[in-house]
């Protein structure tokens, strides 16, 4: 993208008042600018969950991790790329167009399912696999102690997955939950079954399936 295109896009993002759209437009722009240098970013955390669920969960920052980079992503490169967006701050967190953008470290992902892709206004946005987000949010909701905001978030993720609004590999959800990295299969199964009951649909983990 050239500077003129970037500036026009930034004006549109700055004017956008819908937080979910604003996040997605900005994630798309940041991804495109890094992609120009063959650096692949993935949206993680609350923004990814918001794009999957429309759950009114996200706050005022977009978190991205580095999925791949041909050379080490130095502070100089980060500042140079974010500088193209008229960003202020750094070296990992910047203010841009009325939001914060955090470009964190390497993408930690244990899911074997694909990173999901949305065609955003400035280019594709990559999202952390929904399977791991489900298992991770269930873990945060119960461990080390109960945390209701994470539980509501896990419930909404499970609901859109059960409803078929997000294509989900339930075997992969189970595999991750049974792995030593999460070890929370009973909690995941129970919460999945409860949401299926609320939605009056069959749970993918029904024992007679």
């Amino acid at each position, binding site marked *: 993208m050239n500077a003129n295109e970037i500036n026009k896009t930034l004006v549109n993002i700055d004017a956008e*008042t*819908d*937080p*979910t759209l*604003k996040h997605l437009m900005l994630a798309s722009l940041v991804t495109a600018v890094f992609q120009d240098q063959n650096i692949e970013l993935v949206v993680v955390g*609350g923004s990814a969950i918001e*794009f*999957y*669920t*429309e*759950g*009114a*969960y*996200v*706050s*005022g*920052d977009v978190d991205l991790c580095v999925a791949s980079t041909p050379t080490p992503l130095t502070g100089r490169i980060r500042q140079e790329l974010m500088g193209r967006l008229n960003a202020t701050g750094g070296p990992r967190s910047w*203010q841009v167009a*009325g939001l*914060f953008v955090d470009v964190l470290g390497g993408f930690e992902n244990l899911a074997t*399912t*694909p990173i*999901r*892709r*949305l*065609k*955003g*206004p400035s280019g*594709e946005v990559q999202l952390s696999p*929904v399977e791991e987000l489900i298992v991770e949010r269930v873990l945060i909701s119960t461990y080390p102690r109960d945390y209701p*905001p994470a539980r*509501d*978030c896990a*419930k*909404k993720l*499970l*609901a*859109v997955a059960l*409803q*078929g*609004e*997000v*294509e*989900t*590999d339930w075997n992969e959800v189970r595999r991750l939950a049974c792995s030593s990295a999460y070890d929370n299969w009973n909690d995941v199964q129970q919460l999945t079954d409860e*949401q299926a009951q*609320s*939605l009056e*649909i069959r749970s993918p983990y029904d024992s007679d399936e």
Partner: protein
Amino acid sequence: MNKPNLSRSGVPTIPMNEPMEWEDWLRGRRARRETGLRVAPEVIRRPESSKDHRLRKLFNGERGLPFKKTEEL
């Protein structure tokens, strides 16, 4: 372009193996919000986090912009 698969609610599914069109994602926003409303409260933004200071400074005491109402999606 392939037609997207549809969810139980009749909107395009966010697919696993191919990129989703922007217009398809937009079409599903309201249905996804309504699905979530069947299992949890409408707004579930965390009440606090380690980033509170900077967020509340930028968003006039809040942690982010106000959400669109479901009927506006």
